[in-house]
């Protein structure tokens, strides 16, 4: 019962009172969608296909696609996937401060009143998960509305040639001819986003929130640079999934990997929080 009360207060204070923050991903996605539509029009003009149809899935893949595999060479500098990283980094940034601020403020009264650190920790885990889901839901809705306005097909159909063009992929990076994006691929970037926001939450029990955000960004950059399943942000890069990229990795492995890492993060965080000194860093 007390857990529900703590979680209710987190929903109220950390979501309802902060819902204005969700305007940021909405605005950002509007601009990304405009850019996407402009690129699609450029593609149809170049190839002279005036009756070309694209889908909201094409737009989704533009937003969440990330970048193809990068092979470091002297002639090709590393180009960071700006859109993809902005989408994921902003979600981490928006969930950064609330837990620590709460813990050192009114939350310390709540923790003591609840009589249990565990309840507070699980409440924050759920809050973080819920906020991240809402964040991506806002993006999905904006993509959908942009698709409706721009007369895109409301299907999961994908045009590989179009993707190749709008992502400005190198000619030697062939995308496979796929007809539809699998539903299972759509949710994986969201799950990875939740995973890293939870990792960030746990890291805050060791280091300052700003440093934990920095760590997440470093992992993000490393993952974009190096295609390996051992850098888990790779599972949030659909252009590297094996359903569209021949040399891609089996993205379905991302699901058990996320489940395993999330469980470990939650339990590790719980153990750490049980022994954590609730005190401002400047007081230590």
């Amino acid at each position, binding site marked *: 019962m007390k857990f529900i009360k703590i979680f209710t207060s987190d929903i109220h204070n950390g979501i309802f009172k902060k819902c204005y923050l969700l305007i940021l991903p909405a605005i950002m996605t509007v601009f990304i969608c405009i850019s996407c539509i402009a690129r699609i029009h450029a593609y149809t003009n170049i190839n002279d296909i005036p009756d070309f149809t694209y889908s909201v899935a094409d737009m989704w893949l533009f937003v969440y696609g990330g970048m193809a595999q990068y092979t470091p060479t002297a002639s090709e500098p590393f180009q960071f996937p700006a859109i993809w990283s902005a989408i994921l980094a902003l979600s981490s940034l928006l969930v950064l401060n609330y837990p620590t601020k709460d813990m050192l403020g009114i939350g*310390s009264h709540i923790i003591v009143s609840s009589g249990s650190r565990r309840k507070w920790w699980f409440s924050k885990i759920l809050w973080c998960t819920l906020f991240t889901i809402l964040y991506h839901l806002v993006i999905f809705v904006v993509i959908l509305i942009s698709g409706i306005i721009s007369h895109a097909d409301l299907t999961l159909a994908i045009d590989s040639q179009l993707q190749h063009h709008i992502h400005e992929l190198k000619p030697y990076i062939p995308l496979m001819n796929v007809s539809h994006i699998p539903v299972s691929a759509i949710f994986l970037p969201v799950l990875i986003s939740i995973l890293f926001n939870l990792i960030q939450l746990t890291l805050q029990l060791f280091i300052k929130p700003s440093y934990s955000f920095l760590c997440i960004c470093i992992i993000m950059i490393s993952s974009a640079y190096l295609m390996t399943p051992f850098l888990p942000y790779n599972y949030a890069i659909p252009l590297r999934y094996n359903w569209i990229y021949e040399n891609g990795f089996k993205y379905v492995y991302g699901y058990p990997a996320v489940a395993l890492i999330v469980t470990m993060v939650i339990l590790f965080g719980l153990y750490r929080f049980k*022994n954590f000194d609730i005190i401002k860093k400047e007081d230590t």
Partner: protein
Amino acid sequence: MTTIDIKNITKIIKKNTVLDNISLTMSSGKIYGFQGINGSGKTMLMRCIIGLIHPTSGRISINGKFLGKDIEFPESIGFLLENPAFLDGYTGIENLRMLTKLNRNLTDTELNTILDKVELTDAGNKKYKKYSLGMKQRLGIAAAVMEHPDILILDEPTNALDTNGINIVKDIIVSERNHGALVIISCHDTDLLINLSDEIFRLQAGQLVEHTVKKSTAK
């Protein structure tokens, strides 16, 4: 009857000993004053008693239950540590309502009575961010005492208060003590601390250097 028994607690933070082998016993119906200069360990000791920080060694028991082992936090406690922290976007009464929901779920009438006590009657419906420092302090005291806890810990409760505010706090502390609460206070105003406290523990560089019992309360 509430008893706090502290046995040989030491707290080391970043190789710095902030509490050094402190042992003391406190029981309900008394006001205990923690005296010492800044950095002497008063607030750290209070945080240990609340359960917010864990001692590096030693044990704290409350009514025989070990903190951090049998219980995570004291079962009935109210506290104000340094600066009060509430939600800016909420009114005074909304902040209190949110806190009391977890335990006793006091009615608005009861909350208004508490606000009356700290003379925040008219400010109860004002947003917290519009409060002056003194008003914030009064709300912090209201939050600490509203459920009449068995243990009341007030760190610098007279900070930012005018003479009238200080008198209100004194009355509240004495009233809670008379109702059987175990009250722990720290205060830079030595006269006030001596005047209010039944027993005084003086801390210096994390060590308990002196324990004074007022003659009127000494057995």
